């Protein structure tokens, strides 16, 4: 059983290390992308980075975005529009960015973001919170 236990410990360590690295990477990318500007609009809106190869985008993210109702969603192909994707440090798909009406990135979600989370973030964008305020909230 020793072999199996050591193998389990080794695999567990790798999984934990990968999860830690992923959390660090997401936090770093979020920090770098925070405050990035894009086009202003009348209302807060969502930049939705997707791609042909993104299955979760179609099975999870798009139904979640559809639940938001009349919110403007700008769909961006992350491979075709690489420059814009790099500006928001998109390293995984889907990525959703909640933009304030004056065109600042308020929240960046790497990976699937459920509708209630996006709703909450949009409410913050409507209430005019700044990124610094949401980071300390």
């Amino acid at each position, binding site marked *: *059983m020793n*072999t*199996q236990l*050591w*193998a*389990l410990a*080794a*695999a567990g360590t*790798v*999984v934990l290390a990968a999860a830690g690295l992923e959390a660090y990477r997401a936090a770093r990318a979020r920090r770098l992308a925070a405050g990035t500007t894009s086009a202003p609009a009348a209302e807060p809106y969502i930049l939705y980075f997707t*791609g*042909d*190869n*993104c*299955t*979760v985008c*179609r*099975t*999870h993210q798009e139904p979640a975005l559809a639940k938001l109702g009349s919110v403007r969603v700008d769909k961006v*192909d*992350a*491979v*075709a529009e*690489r420059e814009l*994707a790099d500006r928001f440090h998109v*390293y*995984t*798909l889907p990525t959703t960015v909640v933009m304030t009406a004056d065109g600042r990135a308020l929240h960046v979600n790497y*990976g*699937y973001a459920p509708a209630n989370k996006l709703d909450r973030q949009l409410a913050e964008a409507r209430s005019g919170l700044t990124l610094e305020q949401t980071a300390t909230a």
Partner: protein
Amino acid sequence: MALTTVDHSALKVNQTGIVATVLVAFIGSYFYRPLLVLIPLLAVVLLVGTFAPQLALFKQFYFKVLKPRGIVKPRPVQDRPEPHNFAQGLGGVFLVISSVFLLPVPVIGLALALLVAVLAFVNLAFGYCLGCQIYFQLGKRGLIRAS
């Protein structure tokens, strides 16, 4: 490249097959060491299935047995099969490396096989496909034609 219809139930059955096979090999090898042979066999199944989908064992089990009998319901999704095939091939490659280590350093061999099973489980349970993300990154860097 145009989207096509991918039956996600076939993918789920494939992932279930990977997790189950690795678990049987992992736990079973404690009682009966020759069961470790399941890992190289699984590597062959995954690699053959990547290059010849009509020979993908678990998917064919779904299409020929589970689906016609209504045991598993189909779930067609507008999707592209390439990232999933890439992820499967990557799993196969990791299992080949695992197989190489199984006899000289079984801890590394088993740990690698467990990692493949964990990733298949994460995909099965949460829909997160690491191989597909790697495919996206390679496409973004122009290393493969991803779109």
